[in-house]
């Protein structure tokens, strides 16, 4: 099982759109996928039309095996389940002072799913530290702007200082406007500095914004659109990296 976090310290970089589309496409490719909406804003849950409510709140979810299973909801799509957000997640920081609670909470789901995607809220908090320990890869959407890059540097420095090197970092460019000179320059120059950057980028397109109106993943209503195809390529690239990583870590 792969546990992959979609995370960035900065908000509004396209984390939720990435989580929703990647989870849908991974499920379509035959993997059993669970998307956990960890953001109390509940945007992923909204996109999948799942009520953002967990009986007993985050506390029950994190400390009981049965609780986590009871909270899971089937999405409208085959192979894809949602663990919805709950407003109580805003207090999750207090419940996650121990940095391995989230990892332990995910343990019983190991057999049931091939891929668990964590749609994370921005900021670096105790929740983020738990996420870092629970996942084996982190997808980081980066808008090619100065502020977004600054936060990427902050994040990588933080992970290095805390010696959190077990996970694969997979930054990629999101909301790229190829007409803008700054976007062009950064998308060309940055991968040299960060060799882990994924080759695929997601273009800035109005179709992605329409996800909120359609309340469905992009391939469902705009399969042939540029960003929809870009998400397909992104998933292929991510799965390739995960497979490679697993092969390297596999003992002889």
């Amino acid at each position, binding site marked *: 099982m792969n546990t992959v976090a979609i995370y960035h310290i900065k908000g509004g970089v396209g984390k939720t759109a990435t989580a929703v589309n990647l989870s849908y496409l991974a499920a*379509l*490719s*035959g993997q059993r996928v669970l998307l956990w909406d960890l953001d109390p804003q509940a945007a992923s849950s909204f996109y999948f039309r799942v*009520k953002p409510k967990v009986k007993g709140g985050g506390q029950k979810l994190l400390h009981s095996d049965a609780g986590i299973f009871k909270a899971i*909801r*089937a999405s409208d799509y*085959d192979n894809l389940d949602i663990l919805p957000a709950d407003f109580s997640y805003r207090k999750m920081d207090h419940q996650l002072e121990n940095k391995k609670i989230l990892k332990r909470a995910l343990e019983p789901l190991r057999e049931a799913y091939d891929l668990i995607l964590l749609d994370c809220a921005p900021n670096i908090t105790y929740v983020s530290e738990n996420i870092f320990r629970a996942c084996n890869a982190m997808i980081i959407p980066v808008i090619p702007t100065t502020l977004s890059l600054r936060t990427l540097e902050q994040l990588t420095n933080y992970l290095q200082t805390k010696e959190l090197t077990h996970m694969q970092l997979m930054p990629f460019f999101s909301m790229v406007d190829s007409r803008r000179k700054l976007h062009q320059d950064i998308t060309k120059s940055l991968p040299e500095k960060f060799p882990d950057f994924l080759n695929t980028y997601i273009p800035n397109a109005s179709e992605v914004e329409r996800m909120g109106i359609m309340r469905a993943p992009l*391939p469902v209503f705009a399969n042939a659109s540029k960003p929809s195809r870009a998400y397909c390529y992104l998933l292929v690239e991510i799965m390739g990296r995960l497979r490679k990583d697993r092969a390297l870590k596999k003992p002889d």
Partner: protein
Amino acid sequence: MTQEAVIYALDSADQLTNWAERIAIATNAKILSSHEELVDITFLDSFDWLFYSAGVQLLAESRSGVDGKKILLRWVSGGSSKRSPAVLYLDRLPKTAADLPTGQMYDCINKQLGFRSLLPVASVHSRQIKLAILDKENKTRCRLILEHNYARPRGHNRSIDLGCRLRLEALLGYEKVFNKASKSLGKLKGVRRTQDDIFKNAVIVTGRTPGDYSSKIQVHLLSEWRVDRACREILLAQLNQLEKNIEGTIANTDTEFLHDLRVAIRRSRALLSRMKNAFPKSICHRFSKELAWVGEITTPLRDLDVFMINFPVNRDSLVPELRANLAPFYEFLCTHHKAEQAVLIKHFNSRRFANFRTKWRAYLEKPLPIRPRAGLSTKPIGEVADKRIWKTYRRLIREGKSITPDSPAEDLHELRKTCKKLRYLLEAFASLYSKKEIKKIINSLKILQENLGDFQDLYVQATKLRDFSQVMSEEGETRKEVFIAIRALIKNMLIKKKLARAEFAQRFSFFATAQVEKEFRRLCRRDISRDRKDPKKKKELKRNKTVGLTK
């Protein structure tokens, strides 16, 4: 994910669209498609019903689907299973598990099927209307699929009506909605819950029944039957198995056709050799020779099959740099496989093979002679089977004990043959004994058989590989790296062979225990006190006691 599904049979006199409206009102569901959707469903299984035996179904639904992919592969485990069905969109039907991407579907199929082939066993044409129970947010909380199914047997123009039905699917986390819908449907006129399976009906229409083939011996004997009658029944079942596998072997859709055909031959040969006194000498001699010939003509193709099946494992046993160099060897295997297949088809079409089949069948189906010449013929099979099994077991122990670390490979091969004979006897006469006891004994035997099998197969394969590389060289292969890779493969096999050889003593000691002897004694109704009175057996028992076999 779908949790479970309940099937309801509907009165098919009414139209599907009318049913959709009635059900929508009764369950408060929304009709998702105003028109009927046409879906072609193909049920896939191995020819020996591996999925059906395991209580699962694999169906391929053909329709214009998401992402341009036309086939939806659906893995459905038994009704009581809480595990959600695996679903996968594909461009074309897979032939083996290897054609699938890694994931749940691959895991499910590979676990049951291994390297075996997927074959279409039945097909259904379905007209469907989809309904869903939605919440305020338009989220699906329960799925309802209305179907009118028709089966079309291969080669027939007319379809057979399999009736209308409704599939109610529960979704994870929304079980209450499912239960409520289920209650409402229970009250609806013309709707009744059913266990009827369209799979079974669709297979029956093709003239087969699910599970109608198994390579296991399914002959039910009675211990008071005459030996010749019992043996003929078993041999006839083996001839039937052989004939059922000819078409598949010729079509080459699954390597297991040839495997099962050869098993039938080996079982027949083992029975003829162990029970030769039950048949006239001339019959025994003549058909043993013919059976040996069929074994012989099928061996080259089976050898190539084994190499091709094991190729991925063998290739991965090499260091990564050498793996790609084996590609020409695989091509060589494919080319020779084609050639050998053609040779075998010629043999199968030969007069000798046809004669063998007709005459062997004629003999086996002939009425039993009232006064048979063969000495053993009229004895009760129960008694004779006891003796034969016991004798073969004793022979196995004797041969096994005589093997030392310096014994040649041929001795182990002989022991393997005895092992197989014992196994075939146990399987052939299983219906005379308690299922539990036979299973226990066969399981003990398997541990030894596996080791001997590994040793012998690796020995034969390493020798074969040497021959193949010689042939490749004669055929003009000059690339050094290819031969280096083959040599590395031979080396690996010889190392594994050595390991199997080193393990033999331990495996044999697991089998040659007082406990297993006790089990055989109980099975064959051998009384130890009776053996103690016999001076010959007394000596043997004494010898066994010193090595801790008999208490």
